[in-house]
């Protein structure tokens, strides 16, 4: 993945200064689909009101946030979405949306363009209605999502398809790639099925086995990244994807990821986590100001202090370069932010084997059973994730 010099400098500066450049803001957990793999509780437990959301946006603008992603749940279920977007536009954010797009028609697509929304990511699970609709549990959802993608494209918005892979749609991988090509949009295949945010791990049973994923890992066009450029480039510089995660950028050097360094997550209830995949409560915006939480939270400081070289096991792993270890998943699945977890080791070994490494074994799998320091039993993880 390439990045532009301007973006590289920006990321480096914001990491060094701990400025919240990227914020992922879930406006609601309510949803009009019931995807089998979803990690959310769709009941409304007291979402931030319109005025509370606008106040949070003011605080984020003041803190230096530039890249703002609104997601959910389904954001178009919020009746005040366009009011929020309009306010965010006035505050100068770079706006991205994640949606199933069921409620996006031509008129709403036009409005999104007028509001300067730059990117819209739409979840598609299969090019076959029977498979996609079985995942979402909404009949006709594929047809509606595709129609919305076409409307968004007609408005000139950057649209990307996101396809989480699980047992239900593993065979649909090629069809989704072809669909993306037909629609003229980039896609991202996501092999990550996560536990629910309350620590419930039942969704993990939907995961495909590593060996089933091997053909996809072998496909150089996938590798958990968009194949077509998801472009954000500086004038005159080569096109390249920059914003999506940025973890490849050298600015992160000895950091495990961007969470807490220049990015964070805000829940519909005002909770701030280092990342959507790291449900570690650091504070709540109904009780505190954003900057107070971002700068002073003990948990945020603890996350910021973690270095790749301090990881209990992974820092000694010979196939670390093939691993896409996520600290949040390490916490949710392995019980330790700084420890390994089975899925990452499994996929790293597959990737290493694919790259020609003879008999690759992760450092965790080399250790004698039970010799892992700092790891708590998975069943106790939920308590550590309880929302504030």
């Amino acid at each position: 993945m390439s990045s532009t010099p301007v973006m590289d400098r920006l990321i480096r500066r914001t990491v060094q200064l701990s400025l919240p450049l990227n914020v992922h803001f879930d406006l609601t957990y309510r949803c009009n689909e019931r995807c089998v793999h979803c990690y959310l509780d769709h009941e409304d437990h007291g979402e931030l009101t319109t005025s509370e959301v606008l106040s949070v946006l003011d605080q984020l603008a003041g803190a230096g946030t530039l890249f703002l992603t609104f997601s959910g749940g389904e954001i178009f279920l919020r009746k005040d979405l366009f009011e929020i977007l309009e306010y965010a536009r006035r505050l100068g954010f770079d706006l991205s949306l994640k949606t199933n797009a069921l409620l996006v028609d031509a008129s709403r697509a036009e409005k999104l363009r007028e509001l300067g929304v730059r990117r819209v990511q739409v979840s598609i699970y299969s090019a076959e209605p029977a498979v996609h609709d079985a995942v979402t549990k909404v009949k006709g959802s594929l047809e509606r999502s595709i129609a919305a993608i076409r409307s968004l494209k007609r408005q000139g918005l950057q649209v990307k398809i996101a396809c989480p892979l699980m047992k239900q749609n593993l065979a649909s991988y090629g069809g989704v790639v072809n669909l993306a090509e037909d629609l003229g949009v980039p896609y991202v295949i996501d092999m990550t099925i996560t536990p629910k945010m309350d620590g419930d791990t039942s969704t993990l049973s939907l995961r495909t086995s590593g060996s089933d994923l091997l053909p996809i890992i072998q496909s150089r066009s996938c590798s958990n990244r968009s194949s077509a450029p998801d472009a954000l480039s500086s004038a005159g510089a080569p096109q390249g994807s920059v914003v999506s995660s940025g973890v490849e950028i050298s600015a992160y050097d000895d950091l495990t990821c961007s969470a807490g360094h220049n990015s964070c997550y805000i829940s519909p209830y005002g909770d701030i986590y280092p990342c959507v995949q790291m449900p570690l409560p650091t504070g709540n915006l109904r009780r505190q100001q954003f900057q107070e939480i971002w700068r002073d939270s003990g948990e945020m400081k603890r996350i910021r202090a973690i270095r790749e070289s301090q990881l209990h096991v992974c820092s000694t792993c010979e196939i670390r370069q093939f691993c896409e270890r996520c600290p949040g998943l390490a916490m949710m699945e392995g019980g330790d932010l700084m420890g390994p977890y089975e899925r990452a080791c499994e996929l790293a070994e597959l990737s290493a084997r694919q790259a020609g490494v003879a008999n690759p074994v992760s450092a965790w799998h080399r250790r004698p059973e039970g010799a892992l320091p700092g790891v708590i039993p998975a069943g106790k993880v939920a308590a550590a994730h309880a929302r504030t």
Partner: protein
Amino acid sequence: MTSNVITSPLAIRRNPKLAWREIDGEIVIISPEDSRVHELNETAGLFWREADGKRSLEEIARLLADAYDVPLETIRADVEELVADLAEKNLLLVADGRGDQ
């Protein structure tokens, strides 16, 4: 200082569709239409902050001249060149008078 006025254009404002932020003292701008990211140097950044549609180009040039303690004539050429560059990239909207374009 001389009272010569930059004759054309007079009214300028930032393109309202842009995303931009001052980060660590520098202005970073992103255009949603082509996803290009732009970074302004210190002088251009000072100009950008003032290009709110409420001040004329002449007024902004005077502000810059004062800020850098240089003659207005000296800074005019730079400002006009900057405006042309930003307008060409559709970062700046330019009109022949004050008010909305």
